[in-house]
């Protein structure tokens, strides 16, 4: 346990640590571009240089701790060299922040304001290179903005292992490039390189020129794409920046999804499916209850559902494994005695999707199978003779598999043909409209928060379950 001193503070460090790691742990900020806690150290940006007494300047990211070393992270000499490094990094940078998606969350922009503030001192014209280079169907590359920190190439070599990116040529004409034999479009984790890019060189096509980031706010959520349950940030329009003219629908759309760093589940990464949650959540929604396809008000639908439940002799429930812990527990508590319950798999792997790997992706494409099975067992849905009522909660079940004479109560969020076939159809809210928790395949519980308001005709499943369990009104 060597004792080192950072800006005069005595710190007990571990033998295997670098000065960068120790400084971060103890709240001494050292700026950096190329260093990343989950990637190997290359030390090519030189931004993290610090002064060590008796040794001069060196980079903190690649400096092992040594007993008694005196480190200064902000001495005059460090400040002067930082400024020089930033001058060097921005020598050929186009400084086109006004049209760059990264502006507002760009490390280079922040550091430039903080530590340099100079124009490029180059007498020569800035190096021109490719813009909007097509890296994959999801990502564009702007080589002029790139500062060659190599985080993206290291990510594809060390984390996603797709080996899809490399550096061609050298010096100020170096370019990040993909190769045909291992296309980036086949890397299901590719979009993480957009997040870890410290500048605006790697751009998400989905998010390209969609919104300035300061108009958006993140809401913590959980990706329901598989049983891993990665924690994510769902970015949507800030209430104070609500659009009134233009396209007000944008106020209720997911602008983008980014990982929420969580060492217990997913670290700083998520897969591309998690980025595409908007495609899942923004499908056409069912927003009014129906009786055999005929729209009715909520109380009438609830009454009819209660009447069916009261009259049934052998009711069966297919419980959704997209329900939150709270909803599943409410179902068990309120209706568990009434129904014979089975867990239903709402989602199956889609064609072309990666099924399972060693990094994050799990074969079970549902978020809460663990809690659902704990409460309702592992049995496959089975309809014994005499099943006269089936409550189907969630999508993905073929109604042809139901007993022909049974009445159907159907809880679903999306506009699907089955809705009209149910005796009682009740629309329920989706994850972006409610609070809740999911339990992932390892038993880790993660919380999600609402981003948007639900429509008036739509019910939260938890409220709906409680209402169904209440005694029927006006019927014997």
């Amino acid at each position, binding site marked *: 346990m060597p004792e080192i001193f950072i800006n005069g503070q005595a710190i007990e460090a571990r033998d295997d640590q670098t000065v960068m790691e120790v400084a971060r742990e103890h709240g001494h900020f050292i700026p950096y571009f190329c260093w990343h806690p989950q990637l190997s150290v290359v030390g090519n940006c030189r931004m993290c240089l610090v002064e060590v007494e008796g040794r001069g300047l060196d980079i903190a990211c690649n400096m092992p701790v040594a007993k008694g070393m005196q480190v200064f992270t902000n001495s005059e000499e460090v400040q002067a060299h930082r400024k020089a490094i930033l001058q060097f990094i921005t020598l050929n940078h186009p400084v086109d922040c006004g049209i760059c998606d990264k502006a507002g969350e760009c490390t280079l922009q922040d550091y430039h304001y903080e530590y340099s503030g100079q124009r490029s001192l180059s007498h020569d014209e800035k190096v021109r290179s490719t813009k909007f280079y097509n890296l994959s169907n999801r990502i564009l590359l702007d080589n002029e903005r790139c500062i060659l920190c190599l985080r993206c190439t290291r990510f594809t070599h060390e984390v996603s292992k797709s080996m*899809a*990116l*490399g550096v*061609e040529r*050298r010096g100020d004409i170096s370019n990040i490039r993909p190769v045909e*034999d*291992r296309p980036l479009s086949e890397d299901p984790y590719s979009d993480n390189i957009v997040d870890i890019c410290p500048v605006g060189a790697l751009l998400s096509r989905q998010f390209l020129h969609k919104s300035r980031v300061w108009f958006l706010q993140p809401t913590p959520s959980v990706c329901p794409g598989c049983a891993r349950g990665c924690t994510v940030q769902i970015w949507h329009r800030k209430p104070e920046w609500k659009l009134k003219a233009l396209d007000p629908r944008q106020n209720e759309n997911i602008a983008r999804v980014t990982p929420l760093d969580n060492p217990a589940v997913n670290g700083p990464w998520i897969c591309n499916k998690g980025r595409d949650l908007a495609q899942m959540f923004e499908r056409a929604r069912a927003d009014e209850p129906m009786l055999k396809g005929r729209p009715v008000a909520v109380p009438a639908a609830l009454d009819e559902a209660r009447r069916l439940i009261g009259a049934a002799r052998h009711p069966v429930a297919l419980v959704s494994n997209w329900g939150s812990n709270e909803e599943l527990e409410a179902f068990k508590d309120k209706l568990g005695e009434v129904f014979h319950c089975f867990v239903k798999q709402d989602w199956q792997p889609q064609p072309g999707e990666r099924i399972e790997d060693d990094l994050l992706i799990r074969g079970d494409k549902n978020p809460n199978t663990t809690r659902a099975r704990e409460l309702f067992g592992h049995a496959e849905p089975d309809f014994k003779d005499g099943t006269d009522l089936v409550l189907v909660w969630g999508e993905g079940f073929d109604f042809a598999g139901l007993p022909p004479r049974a009445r159907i109560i159907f809880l679903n969020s999306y506009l699907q043909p089955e809705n009209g076939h149910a005796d009682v159809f009740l629309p329920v809210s989706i994850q972006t409209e409610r609070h809740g928790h999911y339990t992932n395949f390892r038993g880790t519980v993660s919380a999600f928060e609402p981003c948007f308001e639900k429509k008036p005709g739509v019910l939260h499943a938890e409220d709906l379950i409680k209402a169904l369990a209440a005694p029927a009104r006006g019927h014997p």
Partner: protein
Amino acid sequence: MKHLVPEFEKLRERFPAGFESSLVLPCLRRIQEDRGYVADSDIEELAVFLGVPQIQIEEVLSFYTQFRRKPIGRWHLQFCHNVSCSMNGAENVLAHVERKLGIKPGQTTPDGRYTLSTVECLGSCGTAPMMMVNDGYHENLTLTKLDELLQGLK
């Protein structure tokens, strides 16, 4: 590249297992020596042979300017135009050769006999100006010396 595989196998034995990427450079040099340049098919075959991603080979090829991606002439004239040679009249001798062969650095004569290049220091500053013809050094160049030399290169 196929016929070089036995040679590469021998080379591989000299490296510890798992160091396939260290073999990229020596293999590429051998390929260029053999073919005169590195073809696209060589990159693909070498990537498969070594089990490394193609980008790693492209990185090496594009980093070192000595690697060629296209065939060159029978005689490769590489003129040094670094400080010492420049001060001793490298531009002069180069201009003479350009006139004589009718090509600029980076070009090959239409008959495929000569390719002209300019390079940085070849470590022979004491005998500037100088050039390399294929693998041989020609030093203390003068215009007459050049004329004689070119006559000998058929």
